[in-house]
């Protein structure tokens, strides 16, 4: 009996085998082991990831404590994010990229997957929160070759209608292909024509450009951009956000996913729950041959798991 519970407690506190913690298990064990200090004492002696024998006590390990804080706070974080105004969320995520060194891929995600009005809202919220414009901070902090692309992406106010000029789309597909051929693969992110097309054209127009690219040159533009991850991501975000978001979710569940990757799961689920979570579920099933709800149920715990399932529009496991 004690061993089962010890196992359950170990699982709950180890931070392994999934994200979040199983709050209900912990609460029931606390109840079961009341007035039985020998159980908790023997647990401490056996669980040497969290406790190490120092002097006459089993001391708590600081590193593991930090890890536990993260796992316990996934539910906290997702709830606060969920309650926030969507524009404030986007502005804060953008600010973290700029000032806390979070990956630039988040900035590309926000700038390319939001609608023109949502991006404008995020820019307004950014000004309210941080007393600078978003583009001025990006331009000032990003000093490398990514700068042109990133500043262009956050400044865009793309036309949202369906009207597309197919001749222009064809010629721009050719222009991108030429730019790829003549530039070395690592300079392509600074190419004026490529940046102009990707950061100013409307999304329907760009979808047409990508389609003509495949027709004219036999390969998908993303394949040809495999040398530059950020550009590749930009194209994917603009062409098929549901596939992009599925990839972000999947990275969170893989072995050895880092903190940024696991946070991506919360970010995507909260920001897309009211937008296109159904399309994301479809794309995920196509890409990975598994239902998103099943993967969430298997790989996350407790209230965190339940809130993810709710955000995905699924009944709780």
């Amino acid at each position, binding site marked *: 009996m004690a061993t089962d519970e010890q196992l359950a407690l170990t699982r709950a506190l180890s931070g392994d085998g999934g994200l979040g913690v199983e709050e209900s298990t912990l609460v029931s064990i606390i109840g079961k082991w009341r007035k039985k200090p020998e159980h908790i004492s023997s647990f401490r002696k056996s669980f040497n990831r969290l406790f190490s024998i120092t002097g006459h006590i089993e001391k708590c390990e600081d590193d593991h404590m930090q890890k536990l804080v993260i796992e316990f706070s996934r539910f906290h974080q997702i709830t606060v994010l969920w309650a926030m105004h969507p524009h404030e969320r986007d502005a804060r995520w953008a600010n973290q990229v700029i000032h806390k060194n979070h990956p630039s891929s988040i900035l590309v995600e926000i700038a390319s997957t939001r609608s023109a009005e949502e991006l*404008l809202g995020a*820019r*307004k919220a950014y*000004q309210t929160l941080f*007393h*600078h*414009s*978003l*583009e*001025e901070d990006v*331009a*000032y902090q990003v000093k490398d070759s990514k*700068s*042109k692309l990133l*500043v*262009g992406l956050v*400044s*865009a*106010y*793309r*036309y*949202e*209608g369906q*009207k597309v000029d197919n001749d*222009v789309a064809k010629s721009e597909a050719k222009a991108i292909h030429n730019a790829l051929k003549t530039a070395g693969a690592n300079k392509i992110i600074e190419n*004026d024509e490529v940046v*102009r097309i990707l*950061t*100013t*054209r*409307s999304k329907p127009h760009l979808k047409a450009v990508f389609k003509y690219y495949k027709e004219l040159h036999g390969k998908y533009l993303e394949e040809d951009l495999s040398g530059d991850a950020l550009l590749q991501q930009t194209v994917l975000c603009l062409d098929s956000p549901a596939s992009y978001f599925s990839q972000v979710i999947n990275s969170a569940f893989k072995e050895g996913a880092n903190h940024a990757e696991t946070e991506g799961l919360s970010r995507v689920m909260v920001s897309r729950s009211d937008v296109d979570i159904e399309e994301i579920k479809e794309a995920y099933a196509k890409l990975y041959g598994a239902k998103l709800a099943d993967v969430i149920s298997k790989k996350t715990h407790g209230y965190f798991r339940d809130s993810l399932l709710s955000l995905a529009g699924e009944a709780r496991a």
Partner: protein
Amino acid sequence: MATLTVPATVPSPTEDSEQLRKAFEGWGTNEALIISILAHRNASQRRLIRETYARIYGEMLLKSLNDEISGDFERAVILWTLDPAERDAMLANEAVRNWKQGNRALIEIACSRTSTELFAVRQAYHALFKRSLEEDVAAHTTGSFRKLLVPLVSSYRYEGPEVNMKLAKSEAKILHEKISDKAYDHEDLIRILTTRSKAQLIATLNQFNNEFGSAFNKNLKSDPKDEFLASLRAAVRCFSCPERYFAKVARVAIEGLGTDENALTRVITTRAEVDLQLIKEAYMKRTSVPLDRAVAGDTSGDYERMLIALLGA
């Protein structure tokens, strides 16, 4: 301060629409009546008139105007009657389609309007032309001009008064470095001019003057024929001293042989509800001639009467 004068009791939009319709009917057109109504209504009143006219007569007021009047007079009346955001969108589209390096309309719109107004222009552009302003500017301009104009029209500057003096000093240094190297379209120079708030920019330019002994613009005069340098100077003047900038546009339009009617119309119709009074004062200070008199001397007919009405004379 605006120069627009609106009567103390304004007729209802229905009465105005009926009067305008009368002005169009029959042989010929009653231009004086058109001016007496439209040149004395503010933006929201003009919008109501357009809505009412369309409802009563099943035709757009702007179309009737286009059918009935012509030339510089028509251009002035139509630009004036439009909402400020639509007007700027039309001027921007015109500038982009007939792109010439000396064209200032895009710079004026991007630098002298507020952030909110500039964004309204971008929205109006979507509605009118089914493309974004920045995509058209990017597709029709090249080289240094594209590097400057695309970020300029895409900017959504912070509008607060906060100034970081340390930053102003360091960015003044960067500006000085780049122009000493004649790297006028260097990305740092462009970044500073196109993203910083107006308050921050003015502080930076003041620091430039303090630190290096002469104003930023004075250092951009190495080649009088260089249109890009002239564009940079225009951008700086538009956000730091718009009245003097527009007074100069008017002066250049009027002086010399012939008149640049497009530029004159642009200044008067876009500023009549903003700061045309201050522009008149700046014009007087610089030329010792009142702007109304200069306009009257250089233009004629209904076009002249329309401009004079907007000048508050």
